């Protein structure tokens, strides 16, 4: 590992605690309802999640690093979401497969991955091509309006940072990519980076033409760990085969071999869609040309190959940047910095980082934290 040119900075414990205080108060507010629920499991789960989230934020303040601590949260979210979700499915109907009856009754929970496919048919014909319900009901709280509202609010705040703080699937491959010390495959053809855009174009056009959510039916690897149409025919068997193959390949095996988030980089059309909102956010990451050597440590650290020689020359990552902070933490010369758009690069990078982290972590506690607490409640319920 390359030695830092500059000494490793750390913030004092007192200052770090002070900076963590708003997040502590926010977390208490967010988990207060769970604290007064009957039973020990919800209280324990809420307390554990609160301590977890606050401790991680404290470490972000103390060590002045972002990526490592964010990753703990994100991996926990990625692995615990399926635990809670599958638990709920088995409690409700004893199976992960979606019966057609549930689709006909509009009880299919809406997933944010379907959003890009919904836009054209909704805009042109006023219909939503998803077997759910528009507004929340007793049998379907995860209705379309609720999930789209959540996504929209999150996107206003995070931009493509959704892929680092909100997506409850991305943590799975991030977890696998963190396991090996070194990548076995170092060189990946950078042209594959365009695949998510091609997938996005294909599913948007096909969904508008066929009036069905094509990605959900044919390409979503996360069907393997959530819910999927019941396998009753050759067609549904092939669909299931595709889901499992994509999950195993892009979410498990390739991240282990490359130490990259390969599903996000090479398939996910929602990630490509979110890239557009990197243009609208107030924060970004910049590469200070005056300090860059270039040593390509940032390029190696980036989980989505968003830093290329061309990006370094341009002074900023590609629009696929997820604002995970890996490049900033990897840079030994403080050339990769957090930045508020419109301001001078490098002038107040820590302030930019703090402002972004407060926004992102507030959302993470509210959304991801509630998912983690929900899953822990079920696990603790077995023990207490």
């Amino acid at each position, binding site marked *: 590992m390359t030695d830092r040119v500059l000494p490793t900075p750390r913030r004092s414990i007192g200052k770090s605690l002070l900076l963590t205080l708003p997040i502590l108060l926010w977390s208490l507010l967010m988990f207060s309802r769970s604290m007064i629920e009957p039973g020990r499991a919800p209280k324990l789960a809420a307390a554990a999640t609160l301590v977890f989230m606050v401790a991680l934020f404290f470490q972000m303040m103390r060590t002045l690093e972002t990526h490592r601590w964010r990753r703990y949260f994100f991996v926990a979210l990625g692995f615990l979401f399926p635990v809670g979700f599958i638990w709920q499915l088995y409690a409700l109907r004893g199976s992960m497969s979606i019966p057609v009856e549930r689709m006909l009754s509009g009880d299919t929970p809406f997933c944010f991955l379907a959003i890009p496919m919904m836009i054209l048919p909704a805009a*042109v014909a006023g219909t939503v091509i998803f077997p759910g319900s528009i507004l929340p009901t007793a049998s379907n709280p995860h209705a379309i309006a609720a999930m789209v509202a959540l996504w929209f609010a999150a996107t206003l705040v995070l931009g493509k940072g959704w892929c680092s703080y909100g997506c409850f699937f991305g943590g799975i491959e991030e977890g696998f990519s963190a396991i090996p010390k070194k990548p076995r495959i170092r060189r990946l053809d950078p*042209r594959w980076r*365009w*695949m998510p*855009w*091609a*997938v996005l*174009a*294909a599913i948007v*056009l*096909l969904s*508008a*033409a066929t009036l069905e959510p*094509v990605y959900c039916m*044919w390409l979503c690897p996360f069907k393997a760990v959530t819910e999927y149409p019941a396998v009753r025919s*050759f*067609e549904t068997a*092939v669909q299931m085969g595709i889901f499992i193959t994509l999950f195993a390949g892009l979410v498990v095996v390739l991240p282990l071999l490359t130490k990259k988030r390969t599903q996000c980089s090479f398939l996910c059309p929602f990630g490509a869609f979110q890239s557009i909102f990197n243009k609208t956010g107030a924060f970004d990451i910049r590469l200070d040309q005056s300090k860059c050597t270039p040593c390509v440590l940032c390029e190696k650290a980036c989980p989505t190959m968003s830093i290329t020689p061309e990006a370094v020359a341009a002074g900023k990552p590609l629009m696929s940047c997820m604002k995970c902070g890996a490049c900033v933490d990897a840079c030994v010369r403080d050339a990769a910095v957090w930045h508020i758009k419109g301001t001078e690069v490098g002038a107040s990078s820590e302030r930019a980082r703090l402002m972004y982290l407060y926004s992102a972590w507030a959302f993470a506690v509210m959304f991801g934290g509630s998912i983690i607490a929900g899953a822990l409640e079920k696990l603790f319920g077995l023990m207490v």
Partner: protein
Amino acid sequence: MPLTALMTEALLLGVSSGPVCLASCTPVLIPVLAAEQKSPRGTGALLAQFLGGRLAGYLAFACLAWLVGLSLQLQPRAHALIYGLADLGLAIFLASYALAMRAHPAASCDQPCPAARARLFAHRFRSFAPVILGFVSGLTLCPPFVAAGVRAAESGGLAHSLLFFLCFFFGTSIWFAPSVGLGLLRRFAAVGVVARLTLFLLAGYYGYLALIVLGRVVLHD
């Protein structure tokens, strides 16, 4: 019925049906136009070729139906067979087209080698691709086309029917005009890469659909 009234009716029917035609053609059309990376004028020429091929597809089937006396309201099995074959042809074609886009004609070669001949063939194939893609798209027998065909047949006489159908076709084609704007994206090389990858994905999708549809037709025999 007076000629102008007939033409107006056909045009309005075409304009109202245009979104359906557009939705069914755009999965193929948009990636092809984007992948070619031509100027708006060049893209317009490609669009015209595509629409010409589409019209030829419609007219070919309509003439066949007229000559043989078939009803345009096909039995489901015949409908499925045409659909399946059209999808299969489209899948093979899209994949070939995407591959052909990488080929360039031999720049200078005194003795044309097999590889150079293959590249030249690919280049010529690519030149005709929009027309052929339009023709295959025209065979999909979308509901507005069927309805227009039935109405055209009722208008009396072959000339009237063809005129009605041409006006209907023009009405639907108006909706395709904005796609000429894709020519403005030609300066972004990434658009071409994405469009070619999209063609491969679409080829896979149509290929699989074709296998399912044709499999169902065969198994029900």
